[in-house]
């Protein structure tokens, strides 16, 4: 159980940190490079959105990042479970 909980927490931190950093980096580049408005979303779940109206810009890191972090945690726990089962079979 400890393995799965650790794997979930580490996976969530890893994916959350990496996804949030990627989103922020994209927003910084979009602002500096003069990109037009865009949004990355799945259905109504927004990961990152950038709006440009003349001189003004608005950047948003959406709740999709948190969902991605939880999904990363779940996938990592699944992966850990498979590895643990394989290790137990081999030993």
């Amino acid at each position: 159980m400890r393995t799965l909980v650790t794997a979930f927490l580490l996976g969530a931190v890893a994916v959350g940190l990496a996804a949030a950093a990627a989103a922020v980096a994209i927003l910084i580049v979009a602002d500096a490079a003069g990109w037009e408005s865009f949004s990355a979303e799945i259905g109504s779940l927004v990961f990152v959105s950038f709006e440009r109206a003349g001189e003004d810009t608005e950047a948003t890191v959406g709740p999709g990042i948190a969902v991605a972090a939880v999904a990363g945690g779940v996938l990592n726990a699944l992966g850990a479970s498979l590895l643990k089962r394989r290790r137990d079979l081999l030993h």
Partner: protein
Amino acid sequence: MLIRPEDRVRLPAGVRLTDAGLVDPIRAGPIPLNDTGRFVVAHADGRTVGALAHGLATATGVPAERALANTLSFCAALNRVLLLNVKRSRRRVPSAVVALAHGLRPAFLRRRGGLRLLAAPAVALGALGWLAGAPLLSPGGALLLGLALGGGLALHELGHRALLRGASWCVAVSGLKVEILHQALPPPRRAVVAAGGPLVASLAGAAALAAAWWLAAAELALASAPLTAQALGLTVLAGDGRSACGLS
């Protein structure tokens, strides 16, 4: 054969020969050696492999060619398990260059030591990052990318090292592959040490990203990516993540 007769061999710091065998502070128990192995290890004090083989042939009466072949293969075996450092003769064209010239994947000797061993791979990785970034980024951006790659490698390993106070450890390098190996630790501490490397590097990336946001510096944001991406080292896809979960 990666090792040549003119190469010099020496036991890594901390590894010593005792009556029971070869003792390594990061491994449990002595490693037993036969008389030939003991002779080679006892004389691995910076002399050449050729000199060791000559001494072995003289001491045991074994034909010189066989003594040399045995010494070369034994030194290679010890090097693979990080129990012998090999210093290559400088006159030779680097074997990695020869391998690449023949379309082969280069094989590298392993080297074991302290934190100073981090310098060469960090500089090499930084140079590769700079070269990769040069056609795409400004000179300053390419330099930042190189710093992020080379510095990221060093930060990662220093993150592990900082959490190993009181434990035996060493840096192991093979080409650009760098690891910190340490003695067996209880599970909670082992997990913390394993997670420390990716966490330190990725948090440094987050700090660089915050600075990029503050300064509106797009190239600094791009250069922070290799650092923040190290967070993925916490997953079971990477050795550190598996170790943190007690799976390796």
